[in-house]
C-alpha cells in the first residue's frame, strides 16, 4: 500500500466516521435531506471563493461552501415560516436554484481561465479522492474532532432535541439554538465531505451509516458509536475497492459499500431486521391461532418483553 493510498484511506475513514456521528441526529430529527440541500447549495460558494481567490485553495473554498450552504438552510427555513411553501418544496427550490447558479458560475470560470481549473471544480460535483493530501486529512481531522467535542459536550441536550423538540422547549432548553447548532454541524460535515465524495452523494454519507446503525440498537449512545464505526468502515472499504478496480470513482463506490451494509442491517439485524420481524410475526400468529398452554405463556412473555423494551427508545 502506497503512502498516497494511506493518506486517502485516513481521510475517507475519518470523513465517514464524522458523517456517521453527525448523521444520527439528522436522521433521528427527520432532517436527512437537509444535508442534501446544503451540499447542492455549497456549489456557488465554492465557485465564488475560487473567483475571489483566483486559485484553488481548499480551506477558503470550503469556507465559501459553508457560507452558501448555511444560506441555503436559512432560505429553506425562511420560506417555510414566511410563505405557504412547504418544507419539501423549499428544499427542492434551494437545491435546484443554488445548484443552477453554481454551474453558471462554474461554466463562467471555465471560460475565463484556460488552465486546468475545470477538473478542480468538477471534482466537487462527483468527488475525487485521488488528489487528497496530508493537509486535507488534517482539515478533516480537525473538523471531525470539533464535531465530536460538541456532541460529547452537549450529548444530553442533543438527545432531548433529537427525540422530542417540543418537550425540550417546554423544559426551557434553548431548543432553537441547539437545533441551529445541529444544523451547523451537519453543514460542516457535508462541506468537508464535498471534495472527496461530491455534492450529489455526500448526503448519503450522513444518512446511510446512521440509518443502518438504527437497525441494531435502540439506545442513542450505542447508535452514535455504531454509526461512527460504520461510517469509518464504509469510507475505508470504499476507498480500497475504488483503488483496486478501474473506473470506480471513490464517492459512488463508498456509497454503494454503505448501501450493502444498510441492506445487510435491514435483513439481518436482531429485533428490527426484516427476518427477525417476520419470524416474530409468524411466532405470534402461531401462538395466537394454535395456542397450547406453553405457547400462551411464551406469547405473553414476549408481549410483556416488548412493553418493557419500549420506553428506552
Amino acid at each position, binding site marked *: 500500500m502506497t503512502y498516497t493510498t494511506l493518506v486517502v484511506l485516513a481521510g475517507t475513514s475519518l470523513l465517514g466516521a464524522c458523517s456517521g456521528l453527525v448523521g444520527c441526529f439528522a436522521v433521528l430529527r427527520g432532517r436527512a435531506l437537509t444535508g442534501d440541500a446544503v451540499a447542492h447549495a455549497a456549489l456557488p460558494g465554492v465557485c465564488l471563493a475560487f473567483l475571489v481567490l483566483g486559485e484553488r485553495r481548499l480551506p477558503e473554498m470550503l469556507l465559501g461552501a459553508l457560507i452558501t450552504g448555511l444560506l441555503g438552510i436559512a432560505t429553506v427555513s425562511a420560506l417555510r415560516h414566511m*410563505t405557504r411553501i412547504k418544507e419539501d418544496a423549499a428544499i427542492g427550490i434551494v437545491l435546484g436554484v443554488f445548484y*443552477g447558479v453554481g454551474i453558471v458560475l462554474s461554466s463562467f470560470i471555465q471560460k475565463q481561465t484556460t488552465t486546468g481549473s475545470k477538473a478542480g471544480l468538477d471534482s466537487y460535483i462527483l468527488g475525487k479522492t485521488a488528489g487528497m493530501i496530508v493537509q486535507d486529512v488534517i482539515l478533516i481531522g480537525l473538523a471531525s474532532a470539533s464535531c465530536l467535542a460538541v456532541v460529547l459536550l452537549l450529548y444530553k441536550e442533543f438527545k432531548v432535541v433529537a427525540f422530542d423538540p417540543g418537550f425540550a422547549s417546554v423544559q426551557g432548553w434553548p431548543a432553537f439554538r441547539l437545533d441551529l447548532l445541529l444544523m451547523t454541524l451537519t453543514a460542516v460535515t457535508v462541506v468537508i465531505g464535498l471534495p472527496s465524495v461530491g455534492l450529489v452523494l455526500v448526503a448519503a454519507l450522513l444518512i446511510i451509516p446512521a*440509518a443502518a446503525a438504527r437497525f441494531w440498537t435502540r439506545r442513542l449512545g450505542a447508535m452514535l458509536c455504531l454509526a461512527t464505526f460504520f461510517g469509518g468502515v464504509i469510507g475505508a472499504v470504499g476507498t480500497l475497492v475504488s483503488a483496486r478496480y478501474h473506473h470506480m470513482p471513490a464517492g459512488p463506490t463508498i456509497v454503494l459499500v454503505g448501501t450493502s451494509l444498510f441492506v445487510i442491517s435491514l435483513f439481518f439485524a436482531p429485533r428490527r431486521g426484516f427476518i427477525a420481524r417476520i419470524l416474530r410475526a409468524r411466532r405470534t400468529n402461531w401462538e395466537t391461532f394454535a395456542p397450547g398452554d406453553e405457547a400462551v405463556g411464551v406469547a405473553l412473555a414476549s408481549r410483556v418483553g416488548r412493553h418493557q423494551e419500549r420506553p428506552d427508545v
Partner: protein
Amino acid sequence: MFDWPAFLSPDARIDFWTILVGIISNSTCAVVGCFLVLKRMCLLGDAISHSVLAGIALAFLFSGSTTEWPMFIGALFIGLLTSVLTQTLHTFGQVGEDSSMGVVFTSLFALGVILIGQFRDVHLDTDCVLYGGIDTVALDSITVLGREIPRVLRSMVPVLAITVLFVGLLWKELKISAFDPVLSSAMGIGAATVHFLFMGLVSVVTVSSLQAVGAIVVVAMLIVPAATAHLLTDRLSRMIAWAIAVGVVSAIGGCLLARNWNVNAAGMMAAVAGFQFFAVAIVAPRYGIVSKFSNNFRLSLRIVTEDVIAVLFRLEEGRNANAAPVASREQCIRFAGGGMLARLAIPLLRTRGLIELASGKTLQLTQRGRELGESLVRSHRLWEAFLDENFQLPADHLHEPASRIEHYIGPELQDRLAEAVERRDVDPHGKTIPGGSKSAGSSKSTTVPSKPTSDGPSGPSQG
C-alpha cells in the same frame, strides 16, 4: 413548413431551437411540478430525477444503444422502483420517510455513475447528466419532413403530448388526490393507481427534460415554476397556467442571458426561475412576504386603535354623562398596551376624526368615535354574556376571550349574539350592554353607574 426568413442568421436559428427546446422542456416540467407541489411530493421528484441515471445506464447495458426509447423504459422502471422502494423501506423497514428516500436515490445514483463509468468508449457521459446539454442541443439534429430539427425534440414533443393527455384525462382524479387524498380514497378513486401512474409520468418527464437541463437542474424546473404559481393563485387551472408562464420566461431569459454571458444555459434557466420565485415570494399579492407583514401590521394597528376607542368609551360610560371624559395622551397609550403601535394609534385616530383634543392635553371621543366604541363594547359584552350562558366558565375567565374577539364581531353577528342571549341587556359583570335597540335612545341615557368590577384591578380596560 415555412422557410427561414432571410434575416435570421445561423446563430439566430440555433438560438431559436435552443429556446424552443427549453420552452417545451420547462412547460412539461411545470405541469407535472404543480401536482408534485400540491401533493407535497417534491422530494420524491428530486429522488426520481437523481435515480433515473441508473435507469439510463441499465438501458444502455441491455440495449447497447443510446437511443431514446430504451432510455425511457429504463428510467420508467427505475423511477417506479425508487417510489416503491422508498415506500417499502418506510413501511416495512421502519426507516423514516426522508431517510429511506435518501438511501434509495443516492444508492441508485451511485450505481448509475459507476455503470456509466464502465462505458468509456461510448457517447454517454455524466457531464451531460450533470450540466445538461441544452447549449449544444441544436447541433445534433435529425431530418423530419425535409427540415432539420434537434434530435431531442423527437422525444420531448411526444412526452409533452403524453403529459397534456394524462393531465387532461385524469384531471378530476389528480385534482382530488392532490387536494384531499382521504376523500379521493373514500370516493373509490384508486389512490394507489393514480399515484403509481403519476410517478411513472414524473419519471418519463424527468428523462425527457434531463436531456436538455441535466438531472439536478430538472429538479428546479419541476418545482420552482410550480411553487411560484402556488404563491399567486388558489385555482389549479390558473396555477398550471402560471407555472407554464414562469417556465417559459425561464427558458427564454435563461437561454438569452447564457448566450450573452457565455455561460451554462441550463444553470441560467434555473437561476432565472429562482429569481422569479424569490421576487414573487416577496411581492405576491396575497401570499407574499410583504403583503403578509403589511396585513399583520394593519390588523395590529386596527386592534390597538380599537382598544383606545373602547377604553375611552368605558371611561365615558363610567362618569356622569354631562362631564367630559378625560384621558391624557399618555394614559391612552398605556391603555393600548404601550409600544410603537400605540403611539402611532393616537395621531391616526385623530386624523380619522374618531377622537379629538379636549381642553388641556386631554383626549375625548367624537360622535363617530363614540358610535364605534359603543359597537365594540357591545360586541365585548354580548360575547361575555354568550359565553356565560353557554359554557361553564368562571366569571373572571370571560373578559380575556371577549377582548380578543370583540375586534372581529360585525353588526350581523352582534344581532345573532343578541338573539342567542335572548336580548339580555346586562353582561355577566352586571354592566349594561350598550346600543341594544337604536329606538330606545342612546346608550348614555341608560348607563347604569356600575359598581366597581370584581374582575380585576386594571380599571377601565376591564369589563
